[in-house]
């Protein structure tokens, strides 16, 4: 019985992130539009886009290989698996032990690896520029993220995300210098990894500054739909990660009764709304930076992560 319940909750969690991901993207777009005093598309527009794209024919470039057609599924699968391992409304997920925080980051790294290959597959200059910039950004964002993970793992004594989240929700954490640094570092990495302003602009096309959009320029139809869905999933993954690590209130511990799960889900949706609003507010109030300022930005994140880890190595009280 317990096992079946756990299976159901793991399944519910997987479906929840999948279903909420486009909604969250739509919500952020809507808030951004309202902040700019525009009407904006309806909040469910991303779903409509996905449906429209999946119905269309795929137009493959002449020089595209079989790899180009496989990659959207690979990217989607890796991102979805990673996203379904981040606790949203309840910790102690059935399969949370199958991949810890380091493995989740590496799964996202796999998705990025293949997406960057897709950018090079057709052999166009736009795809190449997107891929080469994406790997440059990743080469700094990934170590920064690993350092943040080190800090959290040293505080909680585990790299297991469910255990870390439970520890963060317990009263023994308190305010710590290293936690603050890890928070700043993680937010900076999340902005960079999701290609948000000021690193990249998810709303532009036809500009030399774009990174992610240039990489997937040749995709169309259902392939493009999967890639859009994957980037929505990645965004919701990072917001869930921030929520379960730094705003753990309302998350249900393993073994909670069913009625309290409703509270957990409610709290999760509330956190998503707050996170989306803050993201939109941040994006509207800042200008995009030049691409070679990005290493400085991420270098700061890396330094925060490294400093926080060093503090934890030096003493357990920071």
């Amino acid at each position: 019985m317990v096992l079946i319940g756990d299976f159901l909750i793991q399944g519910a969690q997987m479906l929840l992130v999948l279903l909420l991901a486009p909604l969250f993207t739509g919500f952020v777009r809507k808030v951004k539009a309202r902040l700019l005093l525009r009407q904006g598309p309806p909040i469910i527009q991303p779903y409509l886009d996905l449906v429209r794209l999946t119905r269309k024919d795929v137009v493959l470039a002449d020089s595209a290989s079989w790899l180009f057609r496989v990659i959207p599924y690979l990217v989607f699968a890796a991102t979805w698996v990673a996203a379904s391992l981040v606790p949203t409304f309840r910790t102690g997920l059935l399969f949370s032990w199958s991949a810890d925080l380091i493995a989740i980051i590496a799964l996202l790294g796999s998705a990025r690896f293949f997406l960057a290959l897709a950018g090079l597959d057709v052999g166009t200059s736009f795809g190449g520029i997107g891929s080469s910039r994406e790997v440059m950004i990743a080469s700094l964002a990934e170590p920064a993220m690993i350092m943040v993970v080190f800090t959290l793992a040293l505080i909680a004594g585990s790299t297991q995300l469910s255990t870390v989240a439970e520890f963060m929700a317990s009263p023994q954490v308190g305010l710590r210098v290293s936690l603050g640094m890890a928070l700043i570092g993680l937010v900076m990495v999340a902005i960079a990894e999701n290609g948000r302003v000021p690193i990249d602009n998810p709303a532009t096309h036809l500009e030399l500054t774009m990174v992610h959009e240039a990489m997937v320029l040749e995709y169309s139809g259902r392939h493009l739909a999967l890639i859009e869905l994957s980037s929505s999933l990645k965004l919701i993954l990072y917001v869930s990660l921030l929520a379960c690590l730094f705003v753990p209130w309302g998350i249900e511990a393993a073994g909670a009764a069913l009625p309290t799960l409703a509270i957990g889900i409610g709290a999760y949706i509330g956190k998503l709304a707050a996170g989306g609003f803050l993201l939109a507010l941040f994006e509207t109030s800042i200008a995009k930076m030049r691409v070679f300022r990005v290493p400085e930005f991420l270098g700061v994140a890396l330094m925060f992560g490294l400093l926080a880890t060093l503090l934890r190595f030096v003493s357990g009280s920071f």
Partner: protein
Amino acid sequence: MLTTALACAAALLALAAFAAMFARQPWATQVVYAACLVIAAISLVAGATHLLASTASENLVLPLGVPWLGAHFRLDALSAFFLLVVELGAAAASLFALGYGRHEEAPQRVLPFYSAFLAGMTLVVLADDAFTFLLSWEFMSLTSWALVVSHYRVADNVRAGYVYLVMASFGTLALLLAFGLLAGPEGHYAFAQMRATHPSATLGALALCLALIGAGSKAGIVPLHVWLPLAHPAAPSHVSALMSGVMTKAAVYGFMRIVLDLAGTPAWWWSVVVLALGGMTAVMGVLYALMQHDLKRLLAYHTVENIGIIFIGLGLSLAFEAYGMHSAAALALTAALLHVFNHSLFKSLLFFGAGAVLTATGERDMEHLGGLIHRMPQTAFVFLVGCAAISALPPLNGFVSEWMTFQAILLSPQLPSWGLKLLVPAVGALLALSAALAAACFVKAYGVTFLGRPRTRRAEAAVETDRCSLAAMAVLALLCLLAGILPGLFIDALAPVSSALLGARMPEQMGAQWLAIVPIAASRSSYDGLLVFAFIVISGTLAALAIHRLASDRWRRAPAWDCGYPDANPAAQYTAMSFAQPIRRVFGSVVFLARETGEMPPPGDTRPARLRVELVDPAWDWLYAPLAEAVSATADRLNRLQFLTIRQYLSLVFCALVALLLVLAIWS
């Protein structure tokens, strides 16, 4: 098992003599490589049996070599593991060469040395006294040198061979001194005697430094790596795979044998040296690799990075061992050993792939390749598996060993020493940086070589490689996947090694639920490659089925979109140089003082614009160039000693004798 392995080595030596006689015959290539494959497979079974059955170590003394010493051989857990790595690589390379070797123009320069080289590597891991070890080591170096210069008409190869020879003899000199120190004044050259006499702390430390120089130069530790990216690509590709994937591991074996087995209890600062060198090697190796556009040289530089990761694991293990934290030391050591195994798999696979590309197109320069995925789909697939594995992507094997190294780093706040408390997080950051850069490096290597459109006629005319080569690569790719999804199997097999060296082992892994690996405790960390693999396959397949069934599965071909400005010229694609430009600008401007100068012809001039990139190689320009100058200046000074009179020579000899006697008198 030991006698089997030694008989195999002897058979390889006999085969070398046979090959030297008949190499010019048209059937010789196939016969020699097939024989090598069979012998290596037998030896592989011997090593694996010993390791898995975890039997007691076997000893054998043969009446060869120095009269009063004999040749000692021993097969214990450590040498059985490395024997397995060596023979697996050797078997795969021989299988690959059954196809690849047919294109060799001068087989008489390759065949005899190839089987002798295999014998040399086998004997290195079996030797149990300093004399036999050094003899096998030199034999291994010399035969591989002969293979490096087998295409001696290429000027670069000759230079590579020269640099290799100089560095190899320098390294052996360091090892000779290390063994001399450990043997003590009585001359205990057998390893068993060295193990019994515990050397003093100073002697142990000196032996560590000499082992780092001697074995480290063979393994490719920065800044002793300079010969490696020259020599490894110069050899025929199956030999490159052996040198990069296997011979560097024999060097790691030498280091482990001296430092963990013979040099006594480690002091804490030993690990500081090893960790700092390992971290620097990892990052520098991958940055060098990113700057290359020669596929084989890129792979060779990338070996340097992986050696860095292995040494980080060994350094952590030394640190834990120095403070008596045996289970943590076992974790770090197992991570390093697993990476040794993993790297030998994917690096051999990638070099085979580069060899297949070389046969198909005659090109090693990535700027002249591209689009090979259409012409060589099977090679492209297995090469992709190798790229993903070496970039530490789950669920493949490279990720498992790096993940375990990270877990070992997370245990190190318990180390009491302040130096280590500050160094280990920095090394962790370097490891994370090198992992991320490795992914960038292999996106570049794969994307430029196999994806895109062909950049030259030769790339356009490529054909798929032969069956034997494909079989060798497929076996290695399968092993990469297997070691990634069932890591517990391999970790458990390594337990005898860490038990023998450290007296502790990692917990039994195969009993964990769903074949997960749990290095310390389930609440602390666990990873399940099998489940992750299954999840990815299931969700990808589900997505594909759902979309194809419910929405649309139609597709058609059209010209590339490229924002409306597609350029039909394949030269308009991104190249290896342009792909690395952002990283060159961010990291290269600091490490290599990279400078880009653009040359724009004035309006009306039809010359093409040019972009020139200048890089400074810090190892060559700041270390070896001044060193070479100093050596030649000293040689010039000492040149006068060649033209002395007999009286002056006699007085020199007399003075030397007096000085030595004085030293002896003061010493005792």
